[in-house]
């Protein structure tokens, strides 16, 4: 009897797993799923320049913040904070805090940087305020409008310009004094990137900041040691361009080039599976993939090679944190388009390495991936919940505009939610020690501290 039961069990397991494989093949054909093509890693002079600029806090007004501060390699190019803390912060990742007496101003969660060179990327930032209009003619739509510097390579390069000039991210404010000293004689030097408090327009302010950043990096007449190093690096990265012709676009293009190569998801289990290695992902991950592309409807928004449609949706996320307007509210895409239909909609985040980039959603309100999937299962969850002050967590217009695609609920069981999470974990890329040493520089031209996590924090 035991032998009979054993054979029945084996038959059931084998037939179920065959069934899953058949259905998954069907999904692969239906959606034309292919392994993600990733650019070959190559260390060239432009990469080295981009790497130095990405990690050098000298690009920030107070010399306390670099791109790497909120896009930490050890946190999969994010920072593990609900909303990022840029300048005036101390510590890194979940241990980063603002200087005493300051309050958090930055409204949104730090987006990861994986595979942003992919052709499917049309818009960057949670509200998509940097958009590619014509990739061939390199026409972009940005808040800078006609003031956008010429010669930018792609959307990633355009994006790189904006944190540099935001007061709460990297720029700081007029009159700031850096607590991060350069070598003698620069102790507690004034923020030279913000030359005055008031400008005729926001665009004029940004253009001035751009000029000052270039001056800070390349110098003018009295050259400091980092000016000399950066000039050498620029010459190698952009042969034939004279120092007087360098613009902030060259800085942004180099950072973008570094990001494209450093933050590419190489060797993921899911891509191996799509390449034909049928045992690359577990039975649970396969079941999760079937749900992702089927009953779970995740693919309705998480489509394409990066698992994002780069469109905008309201998923029933209540206000949390400082908000975009400083009063706790964040209207998302509406702040870019002014279109009522876009209120509370945010850009679909790509999902490669998503299991490593908690917390989730535009304001980081959900702390782990399982809860994030559970929220998608019931996007109206917060609509009848109260805040501590007795008010509802969501306003009526927020609730009304929740995406009808998900509003009726997905009815996923706990097991099915776990299976989707397991599938999402199969999108993690493996990181070799060799690659790690190529991405993390030993030092930067300014000799300022590099923001990286130590062994215990990893």
């Amino acid at each position, binding site marked *: 009897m035991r032998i009979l039961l054993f054979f029945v069990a084996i038959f059931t397991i084998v037939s179920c797993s065959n069934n899953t494989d058949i259905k998954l093949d069907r999904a692969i054909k239906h959606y034309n799923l292919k392994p993600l093509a990733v650019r070959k890693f190559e260390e060239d002079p432009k990469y080295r320049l981009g790497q130095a600029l990405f990690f050098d806090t000298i690009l920030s007004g107070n010399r306390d913040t670099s791109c790497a501060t909120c896009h930490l390699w050890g946190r999969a190019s994010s920072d593990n904070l609900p909303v990022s803390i840029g300048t005036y912060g101390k510590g890194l990742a979940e241990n980063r805090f603002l200087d005493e007496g300051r309050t958090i101003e930055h409204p949104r969660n730090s987006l990861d940087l994986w595979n942003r060179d992919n052709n499917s990327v049309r818009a960057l930032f949670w509200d998509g305020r940097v958009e590619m209009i014509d990739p061939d003619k390199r026409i972009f739509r940005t808040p800078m409008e006609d003031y956008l510097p010429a010669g930018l390579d792609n959307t990633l390069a355009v994006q790189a310009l904006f944190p540099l000039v935001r007061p709460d991210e990297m720029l700081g404010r007029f009159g700031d004094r850096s607590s991060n000293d350069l070598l003698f004689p620069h102790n507690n030097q004034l923020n030279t990137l913000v030359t005055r408090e008031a400008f005729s327009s926001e665009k004029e302010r940004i253009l001035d900041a751009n000029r000052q950043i270039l001056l800070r990096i390349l110098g003018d007449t009295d050259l400091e040691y980092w000016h000399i190093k950066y000039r050498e690096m620029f010459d190698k990265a952009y042969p034939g361009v004279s120092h007087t012709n360098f613009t902030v676009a060259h800085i942004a293009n180099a950072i973008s080039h570094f990001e494209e190569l450093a933050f590419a998801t190489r060797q993921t289990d899911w891509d191996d599976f799509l390449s034909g290695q049928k045992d690359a992902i577990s039975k649970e991950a396969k079941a999760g993939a079937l749900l992702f*592309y*089927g009953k779970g409807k995740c*693919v*309705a*928004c998480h*489509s394409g090679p990066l698992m994002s449609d780069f*469109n905008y949706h309201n998923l029933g996320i209540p206000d949390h944190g400082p908000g975009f307007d400083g009063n706790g509210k964040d209207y998302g895409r509406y702040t870019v388009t002014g279109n009522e239909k876009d209120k509370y909609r945010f850009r679909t985040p790509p999902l490669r390495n998503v299991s490593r980039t908690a917390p989730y959603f535009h304001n980081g309100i959900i702390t782990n991936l399982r809860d994030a999937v559970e929220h998608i299962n019931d996007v109206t969850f917060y609509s009848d919940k109260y805040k501590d002050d007795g008010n509802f967590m969501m306003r009526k217009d927020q609730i009304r505009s929740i995406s*009808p695609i998900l509003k009726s609920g997905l009815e996923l069981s706990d097991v099915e939610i776990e299976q989707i999470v397991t599938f999402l974990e199969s999108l993690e890329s493996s990181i070799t020690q060799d690659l790690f040493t190529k991405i993390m520089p030993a030092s930067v031209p300014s000799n300022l501290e590099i923001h990286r996590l130590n062994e215990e924090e990893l």
Partner: protein
Amino acid sequence: MKQLSIIFLLTSLFAGYALFGDDMKLTFYKADLLEQEKLCQNAKRDFMQQDNITINESDETKINVFMNAKYNMNTCYDLELLRSKLISEGISPEKIKYLELKAIESDSSLIEFAAPKT
């Protein structure tokens, strides 16, 4: 005595199978049948409703929702496959139909897609 017990057990098994074989098979496949029926009816409902739920969405989202709805219609094929398998193994279509209707009785939003048209 031992031999008699074995003969009795085997006879009981055969008799039980002859009398209740269909029910035994159906019990084995019941969970699968109920699940497939719900998935299929959900897919039908989503397919019918896609224009309404994407009215304010971009063309790309409309296509994505359509692709997903179309893919989910595969569950109706899977249901038909399972139904054919059970019928070919001698289970009466009426018993299958009964279980299929039971599967959605608690979900009024699915009933209009599954109930026999009068």
